[in-house]
């Protein structure tokens, strides 16, 4: 997953598409209406600078190495979190250089898992990006 700030419009659609995809529901209104979303991708912005940040799925992920429980692991290239193992110790939060891991509503850590469970193929954020600022491709 690559983010090209040059084309990011700061529309925040990626955050909503992420939250929608995570909900597993078929209708975005039903999924998100009246809720504060906790997306796994976040748009950081200031003035005219915007860009989205989510897990970069590092080749040599320090979060996985630092994980006390083995909840974080690399599964065919994607860094995934096993909610059952995670005890929410925050070690990964203190290690991730992108700030891409955060506690979920109910404790265990949440992070971008490339929609492997939810959306087949392209992750929802990239698929929904109106300006090709988020691309999902082999490089």
């Amino acid at each position, binding site marked *: 997953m690559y983010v090209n700030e*040059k*084309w990011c*419009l*700061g*529309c*925040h*659609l990626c955050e*909503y*598409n992420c939250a*929608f995809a995570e909900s597993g529901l078929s209708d*975005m*209104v039903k999924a*998100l*209406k*009246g809720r504060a979303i906790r997306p796994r991708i976040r748009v950081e912005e200031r003035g*005219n600078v915007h860009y989205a940040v989510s897990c970069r799925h590092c080749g040599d992920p320090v979060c996985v190495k630092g994980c006390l429980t083995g909840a974080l692991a690399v599964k065919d290239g994607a860094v995934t979190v096993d909610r059952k193992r995670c005890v929410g110790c925050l070690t990964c939060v203190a290690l991730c250089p992108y700030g891409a891991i955060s506690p979920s509503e109910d404790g265990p850590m949440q992070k971008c898992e490339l929609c492997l469970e939810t959306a087949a193929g392209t992750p929802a954020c990239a698929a*929904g990006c*109106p*300006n*090709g*600022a988020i691309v999902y491709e082999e490089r």
Partner: protein
Amino acid sequence: MPINYILPEFEVRRDYDRCICCRVCERQCANLVHRYDEDAGKMLSDESKCVDCQRCVTLCPTRALKILKNENSFRENGNWSARTMTEIYRQADTGGVLLSSMGNPSEMPVYWDRILINASQVTNPSIDPLREPMETRTYLGAHPSEMRRDAEGRLITSLPPHLELDVPIMFSAMSYGSISYNAHESLARAAAELGTFYNTGEGGLHEDFYKYGPNTIVQVASGRFGVHKAYLEAGAAIEIKMGQGAKPGIGGHLPGKKIVGDISRTRMIPEGSDAISPAPHHDIYSIEDLRQLVYSLKAATEYKKPVIVKIAAVHNIAAIASGVARSGADIIAIDGFRGGTGAAPSRIRDNVGIPIELALAAVDQRLRDEGIRDRVSLVAGGSIRSSADAVKAIALGADAVYIGTAALLALGCHLCRSCHAGKCNWGIATQEPELAKRLNPDIGYARLVNLVTAWNREIKEMMGGMGINSIEALRGNRLMLRGVGLTEKELEVLGIKHAGE
């Protein structure tokens, strides 16, 4: 405070059951129509600012938005439409000339829609473009008047400079300044991939785009902006702009606030100074002057590049074109009155010029009557909206067509006709970096390539249906056309028969 006579043209209809307050609409509207109200905890809108560009509607992830015509109705009558009345109020407010953008929106006849295309039955087989070769390659340029042979009697095959098009469709002139850098990049890259040409318009050529030179037509207009030797040499052809269909007889005016950075450098005028293109070229007051400019440009480029003369479709277009054909021009581009523009006085746009269909038919026939049709190529522009329009134009006698508005639509334009405001929400007709970045050329160029590729497929289908497998055999083949609901006179000018004849 005085009465505001200008009522909102549109109504923003938001379905609050669907709205999830993601605020995309707010973030994407450069006209500041939408805003989130903390206290009310919902989105509100100021419709008076809405130009119906559909950006918010298109990006709303829950399809919660609709932009509707304001149902509020003036006491209209056959003579006084709401539009006419509002225009009067606006001028009474400002005392100014009404400005507008894009093509003539008024209810003038669209002859393309009154012309039907033929197909083979029985006596002549239609040809399946999926099985048989179907040629749309087109060459634009002059033709030699006599054959020459060498000592052994072999033909000497040297030709005047030609443009080679893989598809009979080119992107018409849109200047850098009137449209964004990203729009230009999209057009340039698409032209290169499609094997056709785009046109710099009168704004000069940005240094980054010299590499697309082999697919670029560089324009020389009355303002002479950005014209220098390297510029002329960079292009594959040079176009002299005598007129533009959207505003025949007047020049152009790009306000100083748009002349910033790259644009001022590319146009070679100081930042902030208005870019004014005079109505006439001040060195062309008649046809012999045009001939001089044509040959000056040819000489400046060592006779290596065809010269196009672009003229607006006006009443005596046939005679004008005949003159231009004899002026040394290799290609004549005719721009019809429905052609687009970045900004034009509304009255001019809506009341000056004639339809491209009639102009094209008249010019082609006139050049044939004078036996000089094959001295020049004809390019028709001014609202070619589909492959069918293109096929009809070619059958009427065009060698190729120019598309401008259609190309912009492919890039996202929704014809809100507010280009002159410079706040294009689609990142096309704007120079504000925040808006311009909304058009990612990687996406834009691919959409242009798709559009033209699709049109070319359809053109081949139609040709095959007519039993024609080469575009030359369609060119000027008016028997392939029939009119419906047209008067004798219209049919006569178009040089076609009525359906059923």
